[in-house]
């Protein structure tokens, strides 16, 4: 019971498998129990790491380099805690979402299915919620396993599990559009995994170990390591959907049911980002160069600009939010040149940028989950999510639009939201390190974000509009989870000191942190 970290993997895994085996309505109960217990275990882990520092565990008693070890430092636990809170919100929402809508079509204008006699028959008796809970629990288990694992091959297995669970969730409603999106996502994600796996093989050939800590201590340099790092980075960038490898994301994230979209945008993309950050700043730090870091930053900047423009142009709300994810992922990668080897390696701003990027990931997790869940409410209640036909709907669900606005503020980076804290840290770091061009991008991106959030709100807030159809009532728990996640994305900005201090536990740049404290 003391090893809370083991339970954050085991609980969702056991509940997911049990939900799959038993099925029917029990699966929902098991899913909820799993979500609750996993959240408790995650916070026990937070308490443990907060008190005792970095936690390590050798599976089966075999120490690295022979065995596989699990490791929870500040960063891992930070991600696990974020997953737990967002996951709990999504789970509570999903209970009523699937009960409310046995399968709302995300695309009412899509052509009718053709030539699927066999598929048609099974459609009638089959409910998405039965498959949702086992898959969602498996997704959660693989996320936590990925955050805890300290072995690069084990991380590959985690990535693959994550992909399988994600694709299965995307195609939950078996719509034509979601099958196409899921298939495209599957091919892109497997290609990414293969590039990552080749990188693992090359890295093992060079270093002879798989454990992240041992690799970090080895301070690897040389061409073979750079090739390995490049392959792993490209594979993970494909999975994290950094421009121009974002092509699969908008369709995949927008055609899934709302609780799935929220999990994919808020959590799954972050998993690939987390792994890249870990490898980049711990293993490949000595082998990296300013040029490569600046290129990644430029891709991030392009993603911010183009993603935001695309978001503004979208006619459908879910598509807009999905493109917003493309843009926000860009922010995460602007962190790499800021925290990288530009300038004096002993400067404190590198660590500021690193924490800023991760704090942005956290705020985006909450805000984006809230936005997708809000879009789900609007879609299932109004029967459509066409941005230009939302006029007057704010009167129908005021709290949903309030949440949307709060989450939007966090995405824009307005104070006092959590997005502001992340962006502020990155901005100061950009100014202090004399890389002013990133500061410009960060600010312009905020304006563009304001653009698409304003489009939705200005439409919804119009008065005196005839509504052609009385919207269905929304269960209170759904409104509450949308609102709760949005409020958290705001509150985390007011109380940022503890999470930021938490990130320092076992972080890279230890020498920089000690200089700050002196």
């Amino acid at each position, binding site marked *: 019971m003391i090893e809370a970290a083991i339970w954050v993997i085991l609980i969702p895994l056991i509940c997911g498998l049990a939900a799959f085996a038993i099925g029917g309505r029990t699966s929902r109960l098991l899913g909820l129990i799993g979500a609750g217990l996993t959240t408790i275990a995650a916070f026990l882990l937070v308490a443990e790491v907060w008190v005792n520092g970095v936690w390590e565990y050798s599976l089966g008693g075999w120490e690295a380099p022979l065995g596989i070890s699990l490791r929870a430092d500040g960063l891992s636990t930070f991600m696990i805690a974020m997953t737990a809170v967002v996951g709990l919100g999504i789970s509570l929402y999903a209970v009523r979402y699937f009960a409310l809508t046995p399968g709302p079509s995300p695309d009412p204008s899509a052509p009718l*299915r*053709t*030539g*699927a006699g*066999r*598929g048609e028959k099974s459609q009638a008796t089959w409910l998405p919620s039965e498959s949702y809970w086992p898959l969602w629990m498996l997704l959660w288990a693989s996320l936590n396993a990925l955050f805890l694992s300290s072995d690069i*091959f084990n991380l*590959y*297995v985690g990535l*693959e599990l994550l*992909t*399988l669970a994600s*694709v*299965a969730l995307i*195609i939950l409603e*078996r719509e*034509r*559009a*979601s*099958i*196409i*999106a*899921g*298939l*495209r996502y*599957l*091919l892109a994600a*497997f*290609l990414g995994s*293969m590039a990552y*796996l*080749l990188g*693992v*093989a*090359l890295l*093992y*050939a060079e270093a*002879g170990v*798989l454990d992240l800590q041992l690799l970090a201590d080895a301070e690897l340099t040389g061409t073979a390591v750079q090739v390995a790092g490049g392959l792993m980075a490209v594979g993970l960038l494909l999975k994290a959907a950094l421009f121009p490898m974002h*092509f699969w994301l*908008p*369709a995949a994230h927008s*055609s899934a049911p709302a609780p799935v979209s929220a999990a994919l945008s808020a959590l799954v993309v972050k998993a690939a980002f987390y792994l890249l950050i870990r490898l980049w700043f711990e293993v490949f730090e000595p082998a990296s160069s300013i040029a490569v870091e600046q290129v990644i930053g430029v891709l991030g900047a392009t993603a911010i600009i183009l993603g935001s423009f695309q978001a503004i142009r979208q006619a459908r709300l879910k*598509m807009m939010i999905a493109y917003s994810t493309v843009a926000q992922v860009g922010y995460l990668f602007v962190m790499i040149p800021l925290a990288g080897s530009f300038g004096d390696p002993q400067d404190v701003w590198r660590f500021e940028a690193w924490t800023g990027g991760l704090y942005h990931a956290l705020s985006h997790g909450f805000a984006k989950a809230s936005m997708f869940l809000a879009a789900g409410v609007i879609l299932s209640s109004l029967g459509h999510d066409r941005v230009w036909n939302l006029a007057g709907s704010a009167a129908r669900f005021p709290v949903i639009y309030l949440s949307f606005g709060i989450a939007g503020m966090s995405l824009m980076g307005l104070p006092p939201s959590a997005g502001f804290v992340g962006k502020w840290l990155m901005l100061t770091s950009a100014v202090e390190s004399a890389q002013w061009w990133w500061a410009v991008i960060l600010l312009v991106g905020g304006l563009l974000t304001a653009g698409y959030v304003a489009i939705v709100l200005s439409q919804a807030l119009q008065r005196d509009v005839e509504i052609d159809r009385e919207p269905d009532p929304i269960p209170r728990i759904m409104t509450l989870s949308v609102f709760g996640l949005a409020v958290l994305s705001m509150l985390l900005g007011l109380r940022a000191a503890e999470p930021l201090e938490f990130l320092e536990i076992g972080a890279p740049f230890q020498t920089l942190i000690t200089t700050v404290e002196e």
Partner: protein
Amino acid sequence: MSLFLIYALAAVGLFAICLHAIITRSHLLRKILALNMMGSSVFLLLIAIAYRNSVEETADPVPHAMVLTGIVVAVSATAFALALARRYHAETGETELSDGDGST
């Protein structure tokens, strides 16, 4: 040219051919096969690394363990991709992912 280098180059060549196939071939079955073969090319490299790292005629066991795990992952991933492709074919009657479908 050492035996290791021959196998390693073959693995990298195979990986490159598969990458080419994934990008240029539009038939879904070909794409899935190429991804599967890509995995095999990495396994080939891992086996070659195990041979290179061998101590007194005993090959390095760690890459072998990775290949075994990798095969399990590759089998399930391929099976899932094939099932999904079948489903896609049943829904649309097509065997290729057309451009722009579901992207706007």
